[in-house]
Each structure stands twice: as structure tokens, then as C-alpha cells.
């Protein structure tokens, strides 16, 4: 799937650029994209190192396990094949909490830890995503955000009389998205499970 989308974007992009008579923009765009990718990853080093340090402390202190126990009924339903006491569970919960609070910077490192822990549970091919990983990503991309900080900031900047008017609509939209993510994920998990 990702192979087709990736190739499709490149092929279609180059064809359209050629048809527009501006095929030379492709080279620049490709290099700019690569540049941005490396910069993003390098910037991540600082924040990931920092949060991984804190996470390690939280784990050693038993805090992650306590939090995981608190929300076990929900997580047992969403991640049936992740053991309740596994560190993956703690990291997933921390990631989703950070997303809900709109702490985008803190959410990413927690998400990466969660993936590493989920990979340790991967009993199949280490290059193929497990069901739990797919569920985690589906939740992640559609996660409820209580305070969409950035967009509220922009609304304030452009003189909105009611910058937070969109908080309610955002929560509604994201709740719908998340519900569908969980349902679609569960259906596809069964479907793909049968195929393989």
C-alpha cells in the first residue's frame, strides 16, 4: 500500500510538472524535502533524549505501571494482545494523554517509545506491523485534542472575537474520527488476520 502511494505521488508529480512545462521544480522540491526530513530528525534528538530520560525514571519509579493499571479496562479492549503490565501500555497511555492535552512536543517521543516496546512484542516478521501497532497509529492520527493551541493562537493573531469557538466543533469532529478509526481498525485487523 505505502509502496503504491509513494511511487504514485512521485510519478504523478513528475508527469504534472512536465505537462506544466516546469519539470525543473522537481529536483529542487526533492532536495528540499530531503533537507527538511534530516533537519526534523536531528531536531528530534534533543527532545527525544530528554523525554526518554524522564520516561525511564517514571518507569523505574513504578509510575507508568500505576497509570496503566488505572486505565486498564479501556486498554484491554483496544489492545487485547498487549499484556497489561507491559511497558508498551504505559508509553501508549502517556502518548495519548500528551496528545489530548495538546502537548505535541511531548507526544512524539512517547509515541516512539511505545513503538519500540510494541516491536519487542512482535512475534512475526520484524519488518511487518502488528495489529497493536496499527491500532496505536490509528488512535494517534485521530486523537482527540482538547486544546488545539496552535490554531487558537492563529485565530487570536487575526483578531478573532471568539478564538476558542472552534474547540467544541474540534472535539466533535475528532471524536467521530476516533470512533471510526477504532471500528475500521478492528474490522481490518480481523480481515487481514484471516488473509495471512
Amino acid at each position, binding site marked *: *500500500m*505505502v509502496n503504491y502511494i*509513494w511511487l504514485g*505521488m*512521485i510519478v*504523478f*508529480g513528475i508527469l*504534472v*510538472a512536465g505537462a*506544466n512545462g516546469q519539470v525543473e*521544480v522537481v529536483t529542487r*522540491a*526533492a532536495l*528540499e*524535502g530531503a533537507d*527538511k526530513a534530516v533537519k526534523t530528525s536531528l531536531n*528530534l534528538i534533543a527532545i527525544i533524549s530528554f*523525554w*526518554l*530520560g*524522564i*520516561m*525511564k*525514571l*517514571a518507569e*523505574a*519509579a*513504578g509510575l507508568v505501571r500505576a497509570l496503566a493499571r488505572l486505565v486498564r479496562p479501556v486498554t484491554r479492549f483496544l489492545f487485547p494482545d498487549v499484556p497489561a503490565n507491559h511497558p508498551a501500555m504505559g508509553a501508549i497511555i502517556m502518548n495519548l494523554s500528551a*496528545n489530548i492535552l495538546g*502537548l505535541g512536543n511531548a507526544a512524539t517521543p512517547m509515541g*516512539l517509545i511505545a*513503538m*519500540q516496546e510494541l*516491536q519487542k512484542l512482535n512475534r512475526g516478521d*520484524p*519488518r*511487518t506491523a502488528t495489529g497493536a*501497532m*496499527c491500532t496505536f*497509529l*490509528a488512535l494517534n492520527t*485521530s486523537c482527540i485534542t482538547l486544546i488545539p493551541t*496552535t490554531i487558537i493562537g492563529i*485565530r487570536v493573531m*487575526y*483578531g*478573532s*472575537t471568539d478564538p476558542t*469557538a*472552534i*474547540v467544541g466543533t474540534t472535539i466533535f*469532529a*475528532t471524536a467521530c*474520527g*476516533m470512533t*471510526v*478509526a477504532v471500528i*475500521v481498525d478492528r474490522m*481490518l485487523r480481523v*480481515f487481514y488476520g484471516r488473509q495471512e
Partner: protein
Amino acid sequence: MYELINEISRWAIPLTLLLVPLIAMLRGVSVFETFVEGAAEGFTTAVKTIPYLVAMLVAISIFRASGAMEVLVHVLSPILDPLGFPPEVLPHAVMRPLSGGAALGIATDLIATHGPDSFIGRLVSTMQGSTDTTFYVLTLYFGSVGITRYRYAIISGLAADLTSLVASVFIVNQLFR
């Protein structure tokens, strides 16, 4: 309500930084060494994501700069017009799963042009807040552990994006039209 939530988010990280090491210390953890041990893993994790992000961001960048984005928007707009979905907002909807920065740029531009309290301004604000950048998150998270076969993750991610989009259009039409 908003003030309360805002206050919580302001305190969440400082409080975590205060309480986690403190509790760890009380539980007999050697806090400095444990922190360093965790931080050391951060470096390799970040570096491992580079090739995956390069691959994805190159494709997205070509797709956008070539004008292919506009072609896609042009093809889709006759379907979406009758559904109370203004064509001005379509580039944002298509861009949202691909690039967070670009989508935010489009949103800012629309808010500046039409005003934050206009129908379009509110719609695009809701759309910007209600999903994350699916392709970026997928590439970054899967890349960090070397997963190359995503199975159905893209389908469920995009299904969620599409639902959030439809729900945004619906609720903003209901409340602010």
C-alpha cells in the same frame, strides 16, 4: 472551561518534571544514571528515522511543488461543492494528512483572507485541530523501529481523517452557517 484546560496544559510538563524524579528518588532509584541511560537511547531512535522521513518528505514535496496537488483538488471539487464544502478549503483537506506545516500554512492563509470568525475560517480551524498528519506520524513511528510493511495502518488512518473532515463540515455547517 477553556481557562481550566489551558491552566492544566500549562502545568502538565513542569509538574511532570518535578514529580517524576522526586518520586523516583523516594523509591530508591539512582535518578541521574537512570535519566542518562534513557536519554542515550534517544539519539539512535532519532537517527534511525532519517531515511524513512527523507523518502516520504521527498515524495510529498514533489507532489506539491509540481502542481499535482492542484490537479487533485480540481478533480475533487465538483463532488464536494454540493455538500456544503467550500472549494477554498479543499487544498487544506488534501494537504492535512500529508504535511502538518503546509496544512497550517494553508489554514493561516484562509483565516487571514476570510477572517477567523467567517464560516471558512471556523471550518478550516476545526479541520486543522481535529486530525494529525497521518503520513508523517506513520513514517516516523514505523521508521523508528524499521517497519516497512504498514499493512492496513494507512487505510484506517485515512478513514479517520476522512471522517473527521466530514464531521467538521457537518458540525460547522450546523453551528455557524
